[in-house]
């Protein structure tokens, strides 16, 4: 069973930055609050400086000569042009760095949940790790977390530079080939939090979305327990399982417990339980699943899965039924 926590999913997929208040100004945890605070400080401070500069400009243009003589001269340059910016910008730099220093994680402490996320063109591998850093579950394009617990993400890239960003849960961090960058996120309320690749990574970069689904700790335990492969009894789905291995799907996708062991594309062992398809961009139902299988190029042009227009309706339905059942 899929638990559907309240969230912003109804605001549309592939639209991580939409909605009001804007997600970047609507923090939902301790690792995004400092970002919002800093943004407001910069915005308000910038407005004050702009007003002062405009006031000085209007004095220069329209002020009486007495006023200009009193305010102008070398002293104005020293105070307004040099001392003020040096003091303000240095203060901002120190404050900003200390405010956000804990957003990027250091070494694991054993208290947090650990996940490795690997950016790919144009989706995300998700490896759930145990406290020792060993992989427990493999998934793609969405991350389930319990509320109130810090989550340490080990961010890597398999090809080009991507950037991981779930605005309501934490900062933004680049995923750089050959490196592991660590970022902390946390959700204090259950919900669906949308993310987006924030570094241009080629063709369908704008359609490289991500979902974080935060459950209460009890729901999270239930979600974990529910991820067991069920036997396939439905004959249509069984036909789909055979087709999956014979029509090419298995060359790129893993379904654990079967002969499908391809590593190029997302692991589909639990694809039926995902909230989205195509990396956080489409709702997941039999209709969108069939549409994606038959012609994902119409939905996400340039992605690496070829269209399967050669499938007839019967085969397409069988594959869809099989995959929708992979919970």
């Amino acid at each position: 069973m899929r638990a559907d926590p309240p969230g912003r999913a109804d605001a549309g997929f592939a639209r991580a930055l939409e909605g009001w208040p804007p997600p970047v100004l609507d923090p939902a945890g301790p690792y995004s609050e400092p970002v919002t605070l800093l943004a407001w400080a910069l915005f308000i401070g910038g407005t004050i400086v702009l007003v002062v500069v405009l006031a000085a400009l209007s004095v220069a243009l329209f002020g009486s000569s007495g006023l200009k003589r009193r305010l102008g001269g070398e002293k104005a340059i020293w105070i307004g042009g040099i001392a003020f910016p040096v003091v303000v910008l240095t203060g901002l730099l120190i404050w900003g760095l200390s405010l956000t220093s804990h957003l990027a994680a250091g070494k694991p402490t054993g208290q947090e949940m650990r996940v490795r996320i690997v950016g790919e063109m144009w989706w995300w591998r998700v490896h759930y790790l145990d406290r020792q850093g060993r992989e427990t579950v493999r998934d793609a394009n969405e991350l389930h977390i319990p509320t109130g617990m810090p989550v340490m993400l080990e961010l890597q890239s398999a090809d080009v530079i991507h950037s991981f960003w779930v605005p309501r849960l934490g900062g933004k961090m680049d995923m750089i080939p050959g490196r592991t960058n660590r970022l902390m996120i946390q959700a204090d309320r259950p919900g669906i939090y949308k993310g987006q690749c924030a570094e241009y990574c080629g063709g369908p970069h704008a359609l490289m979305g991500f979902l974080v689904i935060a459950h209460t700790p009890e729901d999270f335990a239930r979600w974990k327990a529910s991820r067991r492969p069920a036997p396939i009894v439905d004959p249509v789905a069984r036909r789909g399982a055979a087709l999956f291995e014979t029509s090419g799907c298995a060359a790129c996708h893993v379904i654990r417990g079967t002969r499908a062991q391809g590593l190029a594309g997302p692991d589909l062992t639990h694809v039926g339980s995902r909230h989205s398809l195509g990396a956080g961009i489409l709702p997941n139902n039999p209709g969108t699943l069939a549409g994606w299988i038959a012609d994902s190029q119409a939905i996400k042009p340039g992605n690496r899965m070829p269209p399967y227009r050669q499938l007839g309706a019967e085969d397409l339905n069988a594959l869809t039924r099989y995959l929708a059942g992979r919970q």
Partner: protein
Amino acid sequence: MRFYGGIILPMALLLSACDTPELAPNAAGEASIARGRAAAAKLGCGACHAMPGIDWPRGRVGPSLNGFADRGLIAGKLPNRLDILARFVRDAPALVPGTGMPAITMSDDDASDLAAWLSSLDAR
């Protein structure tokens, strides 16, 4: 005043009696159409169908739904009527066995709103 009222009121009633069913959808109809469009976006119908008013995705697996109101048959088989359409969008294989369009879980309201919206898509 009374004179004009005496003429205009029956005329207005007569005209509205003629025009309302075809030309002016009532308030509930407009609301239903708007909800139907939102439901199409929410359910991701665009994964297979290009639809007016939905920029992305514009799927090519199924037919474009542009001008659907003027289409004679649903899926080349069924008469294009609101009640049949509302059943078809939710459980296409039950009405047209062998179709590539799968059954999609949705509420009664979503189904009737989708039908209302599709029936509003004339080819203007």
